[in-house]
C-alpha cells in the first residue's frame, strides 16, 4: 500500500517479490501487522527497525519457517510472472530462489563447509556423493564473488566471518535470486562488514536481489538502494536511500525523538569499591588480571575501555563476588572483603548487568515476573509465611513492565519470548529498583537498537544522579565518552590509571586499547605495560 503511494520507487526493473498484508501473531503479541513489501531484480532493500519490530518474523515467513496468519507472498518465476509461494515450506522458498542467511547460523558445526553447502541439494537416497561438480561450481562462485573460504574445514574451526561466507555461498550455490541476510554485521568486525557490503553490491550488480535486516543506520545507508522501516510490527515508512537522512529515519524507527544523554556536573562521593594490586592468574589471558588498582566512587561512572577478551570477564567476576583475587585485596566501603560470595556482595548493594544477557541475565523458561524476582527470592517483600508471594511478585513485575517499557505479552509470559532490548530493560528494572550502591554494567548496550540503547544510558545516568557508583565495561567508545566521568583502559589483564573523560580523546583511547601507553604513543606494541 505505502509502496504504491510512493511512485518514485517504481522502477522499470522486473518485480521479483511481493509481500502483501502479511500478519502474524504470537499469542497476544502482533509481530507483523499487515506489512507490504516489494522487491525488484538487482535491488538491495534494507529492512530497518528496532529489536522486536518484526523484521526477522517477516523474513521467517518469507522463508517458510513460520506460516503467516494472513497475507500472501508472491514470487516471480523464471518467466517473470508472479505466483504465490507455498507457506510454511522452506523447500518451496529454496526452489523459488530464495536464500536466507540466519542471524544464528544454520550450519552443522561437525560437518565441513562443503557438506553444509551441498546438504539437501542432491537426491537423498543415493549410494554415493559426487562432489567434483559441487567443487567446480563453488570455485567459480568464490572467484566471482570474492567469498573465499576453505571448504574442507569443519565449520566449528571457522571464524564467524568465514561461517557467514559459507552461509552466503549456500544460497548462491542454489542459484538464489533473492538473498535475505538477518543482522549480518552483528557478529563482524568493521573490516569484515565493509568487505561484506562490497560483495553484496557486486552481487546486486549481477542481478541478485538482497533484503538486509539491520538496526544500524550507518550500515544501511552505506549498502542499500531502498529502506523500509518497521516499528511495532507495522511498516511505518519506505524511501529511496539517496533521499533518506539519518535523523528522520531514526525518528521513524523509534517513533519519537531519540533523547541525547548528557551528564551533569557532579562531585563524586566516597569510594564504594576499591581494588588494591589485584592479581588473578588463571593461565588464560582472557580470565587473568595483573596488579589492578581501581576505585569507583558514589555518583561517578567509571568506564573500563578495552577490546573484549582482555580480562574484562575476570574483572566483572571479581566485582560481582564470583571470584577471589590470588594476590591483593578488595575493599567495599573501606572495609576489606574476606568472604567472596555473590550473595554477600549483592547484600552490600552491588548489582550487575551481565555481559551475556540471555545466558547469565535471565532464565528463558521462567516467566517475566519470576525473572524480576529471581535475585531476591530471599527478600521479605516476596515472601508470605516463608512461601513465595506470587501476588507481590506479579505486582512488582507489572510495575516494572510499565516503568521500564518492557514490551512483552505480560508478566506471565516466558522470558525467552522477549527480544534482546526488552530483556535488557527487564534486567535494568530488576537491578535498579533495588537502589544499588554499585552497578556493574558489562557491555550493557551491545547489540541493542537505538531506542533501547538510549534507555539504558538514561537509566545509568539516573542511577549516577541518585548517588550510585557505576562501573561501565564497554567496547563502544561513543558510549564510554558520553557516559563516563573517568575512563580506565584494560589491555591484556592490565588496567591503566583512570583518566578524567574530558581530558581524553578518541584516538588516544583507541591506541591505549591496542596496548600502547598514554605517554609514548610512538612506541609499538612491544612496549607492553609491565
Amino acid at each position, binding site marked *: 500500500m505505502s509502496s504504491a503511494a510512493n511512485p518514485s520507487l517504481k522502477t522499470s526493473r522486473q518485480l521479483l517479490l511481493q509481500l502483501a498484508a502479511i500478519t502474524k501473531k504470537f499469542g497476544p503479541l502482533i509481530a507483523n501487522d499487515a506489512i507490504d513489501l516489494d522487491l525488484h531484480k538487482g535491488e538491495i532493500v534494507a529492512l530497518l527497525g528496532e529489536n522486536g519490530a518484526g523484521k526477522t518474523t517477516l523474513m521467517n515467513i518469507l522463508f517458510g519457517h513460520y506460516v503467516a496468519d494472513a497475507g500472501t507472498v508472491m514470487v516471480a518465476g523464471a518467466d517473470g510472472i508472479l505466483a504465490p509461494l507455498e507457506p510454511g515450506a522452506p523447500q518451496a522458498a*529454496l526452489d523459488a530462489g530464495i536464500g536466507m542467511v540466519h542471524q544464528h547460523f544454520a550450519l552443522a558445526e*561437525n560437518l565441513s563447509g562443503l*557438506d553444509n553447502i*551441498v546438504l539437501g541439494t*542432491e537426491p537423498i537416497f543415493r*549410494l554415493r556423493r559426487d562432489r567434483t561438480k559441487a567443487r567446480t561450481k563453488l570455485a567459480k562462485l568464490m572467484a566471482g564473488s570474492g567469498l573465499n573460504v576453505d571448504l574442507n574445514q569443519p565449520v566449528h574451526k571457522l571464524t564467524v566471518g568465514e561461517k557467514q561466507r559459507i552461509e552466503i555461498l549456500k544460497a548462491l550455490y542454489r542459484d538464489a535470486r533473492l538473498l535475505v541476510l538477518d543482522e549480518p554485521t552483528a557478529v563482524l568486525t568493521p573490516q569484515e562488514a565493509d568487505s561484506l557490503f562490497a560483495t553484496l553490491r557486486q552481487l546486486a550488480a549481477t542481478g541478485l536481489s538482497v533484503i538486509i535486516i539491520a538496526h544500524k543506520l550507518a550500515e544501511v545507508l552505506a549498502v542499500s538502494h531502498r529502506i523500509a522501516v518497521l516499528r511495532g510490527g507495522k511498516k511505518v515508512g519506505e524511501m529511496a536511500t539517496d533521499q533518506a537522512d539519518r535523523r528522520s529515519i531514526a525518528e521513524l524507527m523509534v517513533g519519537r525523538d531519540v533523547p541525547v544523554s548528557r551528564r551533569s556536573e557532579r562531585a563524586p562521593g566516597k569510594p564504594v569499591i576499591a581494588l588494591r594490586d589485584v592479581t588473578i592468574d588463571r593461565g588464560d589471558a582472557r580470565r587473568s588480571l595483573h596488579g589492578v588498582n581501581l576505585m569507583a566512587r558514589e555518583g561517578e561512572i567509571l568506564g573500563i575501555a578495552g577490546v573484549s577478551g582482555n580480562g574484562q570477564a575476570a574483572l566483572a567476576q571479581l566485582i560481582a563476588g564470583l571470584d577471589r583475587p590470588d594476590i591483593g585485596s578488595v575493599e567495599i566501603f573501606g572495609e576489606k572483603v574476606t568472604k567472596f560470595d555473590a550473595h554477600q556482595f549483592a547484600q552490600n548493594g552491588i548489582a550487575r548487568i551481565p555481559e551475556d544477557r540471555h545466558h547469565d541475565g535471565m532464565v528463558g523458561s521462567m516467566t517475566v515476573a519470576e525473572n524480576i524476582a529471581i535475585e531476591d527470592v530471599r527478600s521479605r517483600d516476596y515472601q508470605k509465611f516463608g512461601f513465595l508471594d506470587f501476588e507481590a511478585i506479579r505486582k512488582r513485575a507489572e510495575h516494572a513492565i510499565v516503568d521500564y517499557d518492557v514490551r512483552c505479552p505480560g508478566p506471565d509470559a516466558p522470558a525467552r*519470548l522477549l527480544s534482546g532490548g526488552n530483556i535488557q530493560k527487564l534486567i535494568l528494572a530488576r537491578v535498579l529498583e533495588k537502589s544499588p550502591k554499585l552497578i556493574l554494567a558489562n557491555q550493557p548496550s551491545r547489540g541493542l537498537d537505538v531506542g533501547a540503547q538510549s534507555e539504558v544510558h538514561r537509566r545509568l545516568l539516573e542511577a549516577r544522579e541518585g548517588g550510585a557508583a557505576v562501573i561501565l565495561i564497554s567496547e563502544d567508545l561513543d558510549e564510554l565518552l558520553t557516559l563516563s566521568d573517568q575512563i580506565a583502559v584494560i589491555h591484556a589483564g592490565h588496567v591503566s590509571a583512570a583518566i578524567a573523560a574530558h581530558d581524553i580523546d578518541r584516538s588516544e583511547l583507541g591506541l591505549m586499547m591496542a596496548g600502547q601507553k598514554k605517554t609514548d604513543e610512538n612506541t609499538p606494541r612491544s612496549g607492553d605495560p609491565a
Partner: protein
Amino acid sequence: MEIIDILLTANFWAAALRIATPLIFGVLGALICERAGVLNLGIEGIFTAGAMAGWMAVWLGAGLWGGVLFAALAGSFFGLIHAILTVPLGLSQHVSGIGVTLLATSLSYFTYRTALPDVSSPPRIIPFQPLDIPILSDLPFIGPALLSQTALTMLALVMVFVTGWVLYRTPLGLAIRAVGDNPSSVEAQGLSVYALRIGAVVAGSSLMALGGAFLTMSAFDAFFFGMINGRGWVCIALTVFASWRPGKALLGALLFGAFDAFQVRLQTEVGAFLPSQVFLMMPYLLSIAALIIVARKADYPKALLVPWFKGQR
C-alpha cells in the same frame, strides 16, 4: 603364562566375536538414533521384543530369515512409538525411552505367556548354524575365529560397513549427521527434520531388535525371561565409547566380548581363589573404566536430547 595362552587361542576370539554380535547390532542402532539427535533408551526393551518376535516367528514356522525380518519389524514398531513421542511431540527422551523399554519387555513376556501358558521348559527351535565360508575360513588365525560363526554374526559385521558407508558416504548420512548437530541447518536446506529423525530412530531400532534376535536364534535356541540381562544398557555406554563411529563401535563391542570371554576362561583357571561373581563383574568394570577414559573427551552430537519444533522461536 596361561593368561597369554588364553588370548592366543582362536577359540577365545571366536567366543569374543559371538558375545560381541548382539552388542554390535545394538551399538550400531543406538548410534544411528543418537547421530540424529535422539537418545533411545528403549533399547533394552527392543532387544527383548526382537528376541521374542524373531524366535516366535521361527517357532510358528516363518523360517529363520522370516524370523529376522519379523524381529526387525517389531523393533521398528517400538522405535516408531519412541520417535513419535520424542520427535514431533518433543517429550523427554529419557522418560519415553524407559517407558518403551518397560512396554516392549512386558508386551514380549505377555505374548510369550499367552501363546505358551503351560510350558515349563521353553520350546526350542533349530537356530542358525555355523557357516563355512570358503576363502575366509582358510585365513590364518582369523579363519578359525570366523569359522564357528553364524550368518547373523556375518550380518552384524556387514552392517558395520553398511552403517559407516551410509553415514559418511551418502547424502542421507550427511543429513542425519547434520540433524543431530543443528536441526536448523537441515530445515534451512529444505529437508524435513522430523522425517530424518523419525526415520533414523525407526531404522536404528530395527537394528537393535536384530541384536535381541541373535540371542534366541543363534546364541541360544529358545526365549527365556530376563535373557537380555542389561545388554541394551551396555550398548548405550559403548556408543559413547565408540564416539558415535561404526568402526569404533565394532571395536568397543569386541573389547567387551573379549573381556567377557576372558573372564569365563579365567574362572576355570583361578576360580578357586575368588567367587565367580567377581569375574562376572569384570567386563562391566572394565567398560566403566574405558568409558571414563574415553568419554571425558567425548564429542556428543550437539543436538542430542534437544527437541526441535517447527516454527518455534
